């Protein structure tokens, strides 16, 4: 009995051993597969964080993404691994949102395909496809356009659902809105529908929690309002229409009484700005609105909102805007503050979350704006923190090493015009314009400033915009007037650096001189002379534009400076007000006709400020009689907002001046 038992135990043991022997490699294989998968995921994160978008990295990123998706396809359980990774590293989840969404859609599609014999599902697929092909009228197109680009995803998981009454009303609005197929129906049903939407949005007690639903209602309300108040029914792609829609969203924000709705409307407003390619305005709108509601939000809601601002808005901003950079950094620091205040996570997790933020955000923001010293300082915080994971530290070290080289480098774009005798001048700010007359020649080049001992070369140089070439130095001219945007992208040390600037081209003034033009219009000229709006050189100081500008912008560049810019704008504003645009243009452009060709930059500056003055006159309603305050205030605003231009070097002795907006230095 004992022997038999022993024999059985022996057999059981052998069986278990054999089973283990067989199963172990499977477990090991599974574990290895998961490890490999996670290693690819981390690699994907790292490469994304580098933010260096050269061809090699982009190709690499695509390959890793394909590899990740392929692995999930072979082992669907890896989908959960990816989801878990995204949840555990919430700060990085944005990198996987698209991927996870695609996979989820794919799963849904596969389920639908499996049940394709089922009539109702087949109809569902058909209907959903038709809705995209829908002959969208203006407002619908707007609705879908915004709906599918909502970027505030994370909050959708956290906020609780709306009350059944609100949800019912929401669904009913959606159905009603979808039934509008033409302008006539919109006109008929629009006002009532708009009122219903606004009733939800402007509810005293709030009620909405989900941004996607809220945004849909806000867009429907704004779109209907804008359409119904519009004389023309232009395309939904019209930028003017989108701006009016944004203005309406801003108006709804102002009217909304509940702080949570204010928060959601801010997100809707910023998303709308993002959709028309204005990330700086999106960030700025969120930042200024924030004061109205931020303190009233719960910590979780604060975290969501500030993360939205930091990640979805600040990181979208193109380099070169100091204010956006400052707001962006402030937002990321606020994210870190909220992590520190979170009592639910331990110190190690806090340190790593902050490290992710420093790596992904602050250092990237500084790096993007070429503030390498600041970027390295942020990276050092990761490197010197003992609690941070080794793989994050390694990434930081690698990045720091790459950035250190850039501390000693400077990439300059230079220009030389035909009066500079072969000398070059650096375009030191992206908002400065190179003045140029149509047909005049201009040389441009990009140069690397580096310590004498180093010998770094550009890997490639590419100019984009109005001129496309791969030359480091070239000559160009423009036959048509306008602001010609140019961009040069240089590649060096595995990094792409961009410099943007513009050439401001104006036609050489031709035709009648101011005197000849004045003679041609004796009645207007009589009045302009008697009102002291024009006059002989000898009496110029008695003229109204001269006197006002000299008083208002005392010691602020009477020749080629801000005073000069304000004078020309005010001069044209008054002439347009009393004698019309044609007369103002004829007199003031005629004033430039006989100017020496060496003074072309002055001519361009004056022509620009003259034009702005005429626009100013038409944009505001004038006070009665001879009260000039309306024009004066409008000009002061234009100068403050940088619509007028002045010289970056008032003396311009080297004939190498650049023009810059009057709100910049």
């Amino acid at each position, binding site marked *: 009995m004992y022997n038999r038992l022993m024999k059985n135990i022996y057999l059981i043991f052998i069986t278990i051993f054999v089973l283990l022997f067989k199963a172990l490699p499977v477990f090991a294989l599974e574990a290895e597969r998961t490890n490999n998968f996670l290693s690819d995921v981390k690699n994907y994160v790292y490469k994304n964080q580098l933010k260096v978008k050269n061809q090699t990295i982009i190709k690499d990123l695509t390959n890793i993404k394909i590899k990740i998706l392929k692995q999930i396809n072979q082992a669907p359980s890896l989908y959960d691994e990816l989801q878990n990774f995204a949840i555990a590293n919430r700060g990085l989840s944005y990198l996987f949102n698209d991927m996870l969404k695609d996979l989820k859609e794919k799963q849904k599609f596969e389920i639908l395909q499996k049940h394709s014999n089922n009539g109702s599902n087949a109809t569902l697929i058909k209907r959903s496809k038709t809705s995209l092909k829908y002959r969208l009228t203006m407002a619908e197109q707007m609705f879908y356009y915004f709906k599918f680009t909502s970027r505030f995803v994370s909050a959708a998981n956290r906020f609780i659902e709306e009350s059944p009454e609100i949800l019912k009303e929401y669904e009913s609005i959606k159905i009603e809105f979808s039934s509008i197929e033409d302008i006539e129906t919109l006109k008929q049903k629009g006002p009532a529908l708009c009122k219903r939407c606004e009733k939800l949005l402007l509810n005293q007690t709030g009620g909405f929690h989900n941004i996607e639903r809220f945004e849909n209602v806000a867009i429907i309300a704004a779109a209907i309002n804008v359409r119904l108040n519009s004389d023309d029914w232009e395309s939904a792609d019209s930028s003017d229409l989108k701006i009016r829609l944004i203005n309406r969203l801003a108006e709804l924000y102002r009217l909304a009484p509940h702080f949570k709705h204010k928060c959601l409307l801010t997100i809707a407003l910023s998303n709308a700005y993002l959709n028309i390619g204005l990330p700086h305005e999106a960030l700025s709108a969120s930042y200024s609105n924030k004061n109205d509601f931020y303190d009233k939000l719960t910590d979780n809601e604060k975290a969501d909102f500030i993360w939205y601002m930091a990640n979805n808005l600040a990181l979208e901003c193109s380099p070169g805007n100091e204010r956006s950079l400052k707001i962006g950094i402030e937002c990321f620091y606020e994210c870190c503050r909220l992590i520190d205040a979170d009592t639910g996570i331990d110190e190690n997790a806090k340190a790593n979350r902050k490290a992710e933020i420093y790596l992904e955000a602050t250092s990237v923001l500084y790096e993007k704006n070429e503030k390498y010293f600041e970027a390295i300082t942020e990276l050092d915080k990761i490197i010197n923190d003992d609690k941070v994971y080794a793989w994050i530290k390694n990434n930081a070290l690698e990045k720091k090493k790459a950035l250190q080289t850039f501390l000693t480098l400077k990439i300059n774009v230079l220009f030389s015009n035909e009066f500079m005798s072969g000398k070059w001048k650096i375009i030191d700010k992206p908002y400065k314009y190179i003045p140029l007359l149509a047909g005049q020649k201009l040389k441009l080049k990009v140069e690397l400033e580096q310590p004498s001992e180093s010998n770094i070369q550009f890997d490639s140089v590419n100019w984009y915009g109005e001129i496309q070439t791969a030359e480091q130095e070239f000559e160009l001219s423009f036959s048509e007037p306008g602001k010609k945007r140019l961009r040069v992208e240089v590649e060096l040390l595995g990094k792409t650096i961009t410099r943007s600037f513009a050439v401001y081209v104006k036609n050489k003034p031709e035709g009648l001189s101011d*005197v000849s033009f004045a003679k041609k219009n004796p009645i207007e000229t009589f009045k302009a*002379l008697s009102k002291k709006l024009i006059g002989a050189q000898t009496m110029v100081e008695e003229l109204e534009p001269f006197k006002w500008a000299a008083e208002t912008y005392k010691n602020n560049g009477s020749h080629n400076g801000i005073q000069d810019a304000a004078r020309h704008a005010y001069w044209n504003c008054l002439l347009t007000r009393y004698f019309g645009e044609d007369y103002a243009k004829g007199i003031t452009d005629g004033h430039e006709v006989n100017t020496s060709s060496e003074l072309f930059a002055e001519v361009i500056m004056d022509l620009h400020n003259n034009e702005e003055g005429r626009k100013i006159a038409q944009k505001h309603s004038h006070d009665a*009689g001879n009260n000039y305050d309306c024009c004066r205030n409008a000009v002061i605003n234009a100068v403050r907002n940088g619509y007028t231009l002045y010289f970056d070097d008032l003396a311009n002795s080297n004939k190498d001046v650049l023009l810059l907006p009057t709100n910049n230095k």
Partner: protein
Amino acid sequence: MKKLLIVAIFLIVAFFTVQVKASVLNEFIPTELQNIDLEMNYTDFKLLYPEAKNIGNSSETFCILEISHDEIWNGCILIFKDEKLKYIAVLRQKSDDVIDANQYFNIEQKILPILKKLIKVFGRTIIKKINKKKDNLTISHEPIIIWESKKTKICLGYTPPQFISKVQNPNIILAVIAEGEDFSSYFQELHNPENSQITFDEMLNTSIKDVLYGSIEVKIK
């Protein structure tokens, strides 16, 4: 002797003609401007009227004088070319605080006496022009009646009553232009392709037409 007599007669006639012309113009020009004459030197003018405002340079100067003691005219425009006065015009225009512009320009009351005097002196041989003006609000067509002699052109123009409230700067203007001066830019084509339906006569009211065409002797160039 015969030659001398002819020259003397010619000089007397010429002198008399000039005198007649000057005295006729003096009837239209306010007393304060009666020292001004065509071909006058710019330096002399500035000495006489230092308050005149101007724009331009030595080769071309546009001057204005504000007239304060005249029933009709409140301004004077003078254009000098190479220091010599080639164009003189008196004008009536409203200041910004005038509310009833139609009453202020009262065409019948203001234009008819001038027109009658001009016809008396220069006859009914005239050139008709419409001076088209375009601002950002409207297009106005000012009829200009021109009397042409070998020495000068006399031009009378005004904003038709139907346009007075629509244009920014309605006016009445009487100008004298020196011989040989091309001021054609003031006088655009009568039949503008854009507004071919508008005729000169449509811009005149009945009483003006009566005075202008009131005789079978009327000759239209």
